């Protein structure tokens, strides 16, 4: 079943097929939506909690594919490959992907063109990793990872 998550940002409306979303990461007052199989990140000037609400309200059948891990991460459980509790690491793997240049767009509610120039640094480890392979490593607290592991063991 395919469902769409719709996020409105300024004058634009973004629609994501639910299984295209790899994970969502909070960045202060913004949220980055990472798309599976590409290095594309959509950033929205809404908090991750609001995105969680959108997921709950819009995705009737598939909302439970998404698990909020801690305060700043929402992952798509279908892409979880490895949970390393001892090192506090969570690996997501999105199968066949394309390594393309990361093109980060940051949208604000007011000035799209001005903010467009503000890219995430290419030297950040997360960016490089995304750019070079289709395996993503995220950090989370050990307690949260234990709970996530137990949740996924029920699958």
């Amino acid at each position, binding site marked *: 079943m395919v469902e769409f998550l719709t996020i409105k940002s300024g004058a634009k409306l973004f629609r994501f097929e639910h299984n295209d979303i790899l994970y969502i990461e909070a960045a202060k007052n913004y949220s980055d939506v990472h798309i599976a199989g590409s290095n594309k990140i959509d950033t929205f000037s809404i908090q991750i*909690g609001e995105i969680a609400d959108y997921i709950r309200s819009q995705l009737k059948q598939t909302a*439970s594919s998404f698990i909020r891990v*801690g*305060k700043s991460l929402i992952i798509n459980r279908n892409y979880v490959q490895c949970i390393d509790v001892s090192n506090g690491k969570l690996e997501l793997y999105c199968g066949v992907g394309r390594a393309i240049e990361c093109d980060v767009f940051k949208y604000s509610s007011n000035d799209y063109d001005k903010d467009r120039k503000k890219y995430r640094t290419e030297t950040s480890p997360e960016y490089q990793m995304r750019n070079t392979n289709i395996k993503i490593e995220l950090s*989370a607290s050990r307690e*949260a990872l234990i709970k996530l592991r137990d*949740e996924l063991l029920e699958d």
Partner: protein
Amino acid sequence: MKDTDIEVLGEDPRKLRRKKRNIQLALGIFAIVLIVIVLFLILRQSKRTSEITSTDETYTPTEGDVGKTVSDSLSVDTIPFTLEEMEINGNKYRCFQLVNAELELALYNDIDTTDTAIVFVTQAANIRGDNNKIIGDFIYKGDSMAKGCPNASTLGFCAIFGGKTIIGKANPTTFLDSAKNDSGFFFRQYALVNDNGFESFESEAKSYRRALCIKDGNVMVVESIDKITLSAFAEALFDYDISNAVNLMGGKNLDEWYVKDGKREVLFINTREPNPNRNYLIFRAK
């Protein structure tokens, strides 16, 4: 939300299905339990109803019948009979033992239900189903109401005369003449226990059994609370050290009641058509 927490967004459909399954299971179990309880109550009610029906269906107490006080001359020390329940060979029985009462026979049209001296009533000789006549010799207040000893079922007898009660198995017997001459009573039935021990019967039919017995010189009516064969009944009486016993009418389609604490306790009601030959064994308080 803490960094140490996780939250599944939207309810997990698997959990939803599990929850739905659990609810269905719980409802199913509840329904079964409810059905069992209802069935139990219905069965209990129908059993109670049938018991009530068997005792109240045709017997309509008239004023003066039920609740009549036994004669004021009787004190606790002069109780007419004792009633006890016991178990013999795994079956339950009740025993009405004559204490301060006399044994008599009475016919259907003669029994006075307002007579407060009558404290125990049961039926005695069997009645033929085809012609409604009493089976075997029957003497009533010295008068012969029926004659004969047609078969083995009537070899047993009870003769009541001159304050004595004789139980035996014989044909002919001089006690028949004694009853006749002394304005007494006499009836015939199956002999169950005598000097030779207890009788055996071929029939395996089970029913409520009754017998007039003598034990250690005391006269008593022993009846089964459980359904048993006639052979088992005879053996039980023998094991209970009864020296002589003659059968009384069995089953539960008969008139039987006793008086306790001034109140009539009805055990069974005869639902057959009234018959002048219906005969009773009674305890009459002295």
